Structure formats: structure tokens, C-alpha cells
């Protein structure tokens, strides 16, 4: 019976303290009864392989011991949906926006090496999320074991729910791909602008110098580029809140048009110096480059307006009414 002893010893180590001896005594009796039952049927003692088969059928010691544990889960089914909701709020709606809109921009703007700071900020965000998930899980695990009476999701009054509006906006949710693209574009172009902004460029002896207006508008430009991050964020988190999205977009478009207008007003945007090249040729190059920039700026303004009109029409078109009323 050494096998049985080994089995019981293994089970015992996984049992709750204080009940170990009691459970093992009962289990030993049960196994012994089963073995005796089989032996009396066969008319001979069981061999080691047959005893091993019986024990195998009873299950792995850890599994068997686990059945006696008071609770099999960390967070039970009653609390789990609330746990998920809290995680979503804390991690996605608080932590990420705080990093993306506050911690990150401040760290990058004041850093000596913006690209390194960006990577460090992303790493800090990931670590903060891991820590937050751990803390929230711990809190809910404690709540599961020491339940409190005032669980907000259990005590509620239907009469305190907000009234259904007489009309609801006709808002098709913004596609997730659009939202992600906006977020990525804002982060990538913002980072590039921060890391590689210069006012002079050297192309093999040809020096292109940006007019002072570009340096003066650096921060407004950065703000406009980065503003697609909150727009993408709103679209990702609340895809149906198209009005909020449009509000942000209208602000961005207005800022873009203002910047374009200020730039156009400057009249000259680049200067070119190329020692060794004929002066007349350089003047022609400056003239055509500035013309190209002017056309680009005007095109940009036209596209901004043309792109905003269809969305504005969609947002402010006739609203549909609530179609699910069962009021009597």
C-alpha cells in the first residue's frame, strides 16, 4: 500500500490547513474500501499496477486537493463584469490619456533627447498599466473574499436612470481603423516633428533655409499635428460619439486654416543659397519653390474645407427617433 500512502501524502500537501488530517483519514478509508471491494470480487489481492490504476482514476493529487479548497476563482462571476469595467476605465480611459496628453507631451517637450524620452514614456506607460492591473485585481480579489453590502451595481433604482432623449443623433460609429490611423499618425508625425525639425537643409552644396515664419509657427504646428491623437482616441473609445469627434475635428480644421492663412500671408517661405551656381538660376529656383509651396498651402486649405463638409452634413442631418419604446 505504499502507493496509496504516497498518493495521500501528495494530496495532503494541497489541502486547506486545519482539515488535512480529517480529509485524508476519510479519503484513506474510501480508497481502502474500494480496494477491498475489488479484491473480494477478484478473490485475490490487487497488484501494484491495479492499485496505480485506481489512484490514477481518482485524479492527480493537486486536482483532488483543489476540490476541497473553499474557492476556485480569484474574482467570481458576480464581480467579474464590474472588475472588467473598472479595468477598462482605469487603464484605457484614465492612464493612457494621462500619459498621451499630459505626461508624454511634457516629458518630450522638455527633454534633451525627445526620441529617447518618447520610448521611455511608452515603457513607463506599459509598466504603469501592469502595476494598475495588479492593484485593481488585488482590490477585487479582496472584495470577493470580504464582500461589502454596498456594491453599487447591486443597489440601483431604475427611476434614477437618465431619460431617453426625444431624438437621438444619427451617428454611425467611426470605424476602428480610422481611429487607430489617426492616433498613429498623430504620434508618428508629432514625434518626427519634435525629433527632426530644422530650419536649414543642405543638399550637396545647395543650402535651403526656411523663412523665420516656420520657426515662429513650430509650436502651433506641433499642436495641430498632435491633436489628431485626441481625435483618434475619442473615435476609438467612443466610436458613436461622432459629435464630440466632429467638435475636435472642427477645432483642428480651424487651427489648420488659420496656420495656412498666416503662412500664406508671409509671402516667402524658403531661401536658397548655392555658392558656385549662377545667381539668375538660384533666383528662378527660389521663385518656383516658393510658388510650389504656395500652391501646396492653398491646396491644403481647399482639401481641409472639402473634407470637413461631408462629415458636417452627416452629423447635422435629420435625426432619427427612438424606435424601441414599450411605454404603455
Amino acid at each position, binding site marked *: 500500500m505504499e502507493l496509496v500512502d504516497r498518493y495521500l501524502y501528495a494530496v495532503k500537501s494541497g489541502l486547506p490547513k486545519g482539515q488535512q488530517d480529517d480529509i485524508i*483519514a476519510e*479519503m484513506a*478509508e*474510501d480508497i481502502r474500501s*474500494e480496494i477491498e471491494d475489488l479484491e473480494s470480487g477478484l478473490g485475490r489481492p490487487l497488484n501494484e499496477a491495479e492499485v496505480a490504476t485506481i489512484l490514477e482514476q*481518482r485524479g492527480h493529487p493537486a486536482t*483532488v486537493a483543489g476540490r476541497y479548497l473553499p474557492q476556485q476563482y480569484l474574482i467570481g462571476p458576480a464581480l467579474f463584469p464590474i472588475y472588467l469595467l473598472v479595468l477598462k476605465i482605469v487603464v484605457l480611459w484614465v492612464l493612457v490619456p494621462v500619459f498621451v496628453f499630459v505626461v508624454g507631451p511634457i516629458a518630450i517637450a522638455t527633454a534633451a533627447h525627445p526620441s529617447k524620452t518618447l520610448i521611455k514614456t511608452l515603457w513607463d506607460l506599459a509598466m504603469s498599466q501592469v502595476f494598475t492591473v495588479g492593484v485593481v485585481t488585488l482590490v477585487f480579489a479582496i472584495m470577493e473574499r470580504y464582500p461589502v453590502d454596498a456594491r453599487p451595481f447591486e443597489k440601483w433604482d431604475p427611476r434614477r436612470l437618465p431619460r431617453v432623449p426625444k431624438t437621438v443623433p444619427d451617428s454611425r460609429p467611426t470605424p476602428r481603423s480610422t481611429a487607430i490611423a489617426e492616433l498613429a499618425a498623430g504620434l508618428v508625425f508629432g514625434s518626427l516633428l519634435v525629433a527632426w525639425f530644422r530650419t536649414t537643409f543642405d543638399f550637396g552644396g545647395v543650402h535651403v533655409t526656411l523663412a523665420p515664419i516656420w520657426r515662429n509657427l513650430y509650436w502651433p504646428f506641433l499642436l495641430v499635428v498632435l491633436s489628431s491623437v485626441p481625435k483618434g482616441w475619442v473615435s476609438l473609445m467612443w466610436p458613436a460619439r461622432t459629435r464630440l469627434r466632429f467638435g475636435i475635428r472642427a477645432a483642428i480644421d480651424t487651427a489648420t486654416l488659420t496656420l495656412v492663412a498666416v503662412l500664406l500671408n508671409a509671402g516667402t517661405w524658403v531661401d536658397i543659397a548655392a555658392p558656385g551656381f549662377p545667381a539668375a538660376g538660384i533666383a528662378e529656383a527660389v521663385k518656383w519653390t516658393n510658388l510650389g509651396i504656395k500652391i501646396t498651402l492653398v491646396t491644403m486649405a481647399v482639401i481641409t474645407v472639402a473634407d470637413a463638409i461631408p462629415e458636417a452634413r452627416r452629423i447635422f442631418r435629420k435625426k432619427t427617433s427612438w424606435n424601441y419604446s414599450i411605454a404603455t
Partner: protein
Amino acid sequence: MNAELFENLRLELRRGCLILAVLAQLRAEHYGYALRKALADRGMAIDENTLYPLLRRLETQGLLVSQWREEEKRNKRFYRLSSDGELILQQLLDEWNAINSSLKRIIDGEAPVGELQLERSI
């Protein structure tokens, strides 16, 4: 997939029935192995990893009482229904019979018995 689904649903269906069967069988005193055999002999086989934790839970809930006693020169733990257990068993049997009757009417496609009873407290 179907076999697995069926097995899950079967276990779900059996879970409540097992409690009823154990409580009913323990109207007479049994020790663990004898209880297992008695249930299996009546077509309600239950494996030891389910039975013993269940017995402990029911005892903690006050529905069973147990006692270690020597029988045939061996120590065995005997279980029987407590007075609270008897009361609960009767209530559960009434509920079981009501469910059984309802199911039969539903499966046979019989007409409703009475008006819909709202069980929610208003």
C-alpha cells in the same frame, strides 16, 4: 464539439440533482463509501472527488451532521440528515416535483395551467 457541449450541459443538469440525491439518501445514516455505492446502485453514480467535498459543504451549511465511529474495527465517518436538512430536503423535493410537472407540460405541449405568476417582489 457536440459531445463536449452535451457533457457540459449534462453536468450542469446533474449538479442540482446530485444534492437532492445525497440529501435523500442520507435520511438513513451512511459512511462515504457506502453512500457512494448506494447512490450508484440506484443509478446515480457520483465520483469521490465530487461527493466528499459536497458532503463537507452540506455539513458546513448545517444540512448534514457527521460522526467518526468505529465499525468493523475501522474508523469511518458517518453522515446523516440534520433537522434543518430534513426541512430543506422537503422544500427541495416540492420544488423538484413542481419543476418536473412544468417540464412535462412544456415537453408535452399542454395548455398553460394559470396566469403568469410574477415572482419578482414589487
